[in-house]
């Protein structure tokens, strides 16, 4: 956060003051132009799409924004997406919070190994991962349905929600969750506080719930939100494994009602943006409190 280039110019030696002021003026003008062009480029399609979703020949209709909840398939697709997102967030946090706390407190040597494994899903695209997953799923479904393998895969694929998706989503969200928690642990003096709590006789469970969780509140919230938003919009894996959460439904439904499809797209982008803004505000308030 260093908005200093301008003030740096302003405090330059007075001998060249006039020339500098002229340059600064030109820079500000150029910056305004860049921001304006960018604003038009990015807001333009959004505005056009919004118009598309309410345009009705000679008038305006809000039917897309009032009727989507009763549209066939919306409720079940949205419900599936929310369930998947919730299970993913819980699983990811259960897996990574204890792991990261442990490597920061007890096993700093394996930090780089865990970091590597957590960031790797960034390197292997989801479209590649899903090829492997569907192959493994194929082995499972071709196994004898009464055998242990057959029953296990039946559970993974046909439970509500189908567990195979959140299990893989945890992998897809791992880079974001890892980074958020890791930087949170780096910034706070967790190690000292945990040692103090242990010396005073607190159990590991108490330490986790009453020391670690409050310290990492912002990072955990941040990680949970990112994972949640990623799962809500996920398309590649769910569509190729033949499930129908929100994003897949939205694509298939477009043939029936284009206006509704565009309206829901706008709503989902706007919702994500608002949640992200709330995150930024909370994080900013915490940072101010810490200093």
């Amino acid at each position: 956060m260093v908005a200093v280039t301008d003030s740096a110019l302003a405090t330059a030696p007075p001998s060249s003051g006039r020339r500098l002021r002229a340059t600064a003026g030109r820079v500000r003008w150029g910056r305004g132009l860049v921001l304006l062009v960018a604003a038009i480029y990015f807001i333009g399609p959004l505005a056009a799409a919004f118009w598309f979703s309410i345009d009705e020949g000679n008038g305006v209709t809000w039917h897309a924004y009032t009727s989507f909840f009763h549209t066939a398939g919306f409720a079940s697709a949205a419900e599936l997406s929310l369930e998947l997102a919730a299970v993913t967030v819980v699983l990811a946090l259960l897996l990574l919070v204890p792991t990261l706390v442990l490597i920061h407190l007890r096993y700093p040597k394996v930090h780089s190994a865990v970091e590597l494994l957590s960031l790797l899903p960034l390197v292997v695209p989801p479209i590649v991962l899903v090829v492997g997953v569907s192959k493994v799923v194929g082995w499972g479904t071709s196994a004898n349905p009464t055998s242990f393998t057959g029953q296990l895969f039946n559970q993974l694929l046909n439970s509500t929600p189908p567990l195979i998706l959140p299990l893989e989503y945890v992998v897809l969200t791992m880079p974001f969750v890892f980074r958020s928690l890791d930087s949170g642990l780096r910034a706070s003096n967790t190690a000292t506080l945990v040692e103090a709590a242990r010396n005073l006789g607190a159990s590991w469970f108490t330490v986790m719930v009453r020391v670690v969780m409050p310290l990492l509140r912002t990072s955990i919230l941040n990680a949970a939100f990112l994972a949640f938003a990623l799962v809500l919009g996920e398309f590649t894996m769910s569509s190729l494994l033949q499930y129908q959460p929100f994003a897949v439904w939205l694509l298939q439904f477009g043939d029936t009602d284009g206006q509704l499809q565009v309206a829901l797209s706008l709503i989902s982008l706007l919702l994500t943006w608002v949640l992200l803004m709330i995150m930024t505000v909370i994080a900013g308030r915490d940072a101010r409190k810490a200093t």
Partner: protein
Amino acid sequence: MLPFFGYSALFFLLPTGVVLWTAVKSGSGFTGGNLSQTIHGAYLTGLQNSVKVSVIDAVLAAVLGLILAQAIVTSRHGFLRRTVASAAAVLANFGGLPLAFLFVAAIGNAGVLTTFFSKHFNVDITNHYDLYGVSGVELVYLYFLVPLMVLVITPALEGLRPQWQEAARNLGASRVQYWRHVAMPVLLPSVFGATALLFCSSFSAYATAQALTNGTLSLTSLQIGNALDGNVLANADGIAAALALDMIILVVPLTVLYLYMQRRTSKWLQ
């Protein structure tokens, strides 16, 4: 520690390994047949299209994103910067499917702007691009790649110390000289790394292109999807895995380059 490593092995390393294994496996032996099939004919065209789209978009997005990020970083309105930063995060990470629909609504065959221009100016703007073809995919990808560039290059731009510019000025350097001899050399590794990341994002994107073209365009990611989905191909598994392996071969070194450059940058940022 064990649950974490076990989890990664089971749900990440195993499927990835299975891809490699399936790509080169045939009956009881090994084969290069799948791989060689994916670098000939229609699959070669797909690879070429994908590389072309990704190179053009990565370079364009890197240049445009750099300019935009510099404008945002030097802006003094904190609110504007926060708003733009979070909007960029939304478009870069969660764009996917909605972006395709937005563009169809704006400039598709029945889009708002298309109708507007044909009604009032009697011009059919769809003559100048094919939204459902390669040029359309390039256009729509830019919409999430430019924000991605802004996100990844902003820390590097914020790391440029104002003292460097002051020092250069005191020594009599012009603006151009400052950028040419001070800022550019410092930024270059980050810019290269970011461009590599943009290439990979574009190359492995699936949802946007699938929604735009219904899977008909020959791009490698769509061909993988079709091979998995269709069940019409003989040996579909082998082809899908071999295409996935092609993708790994192209994308993995570039992503590693990005992560390495990012680590280098974060060192001198502290």
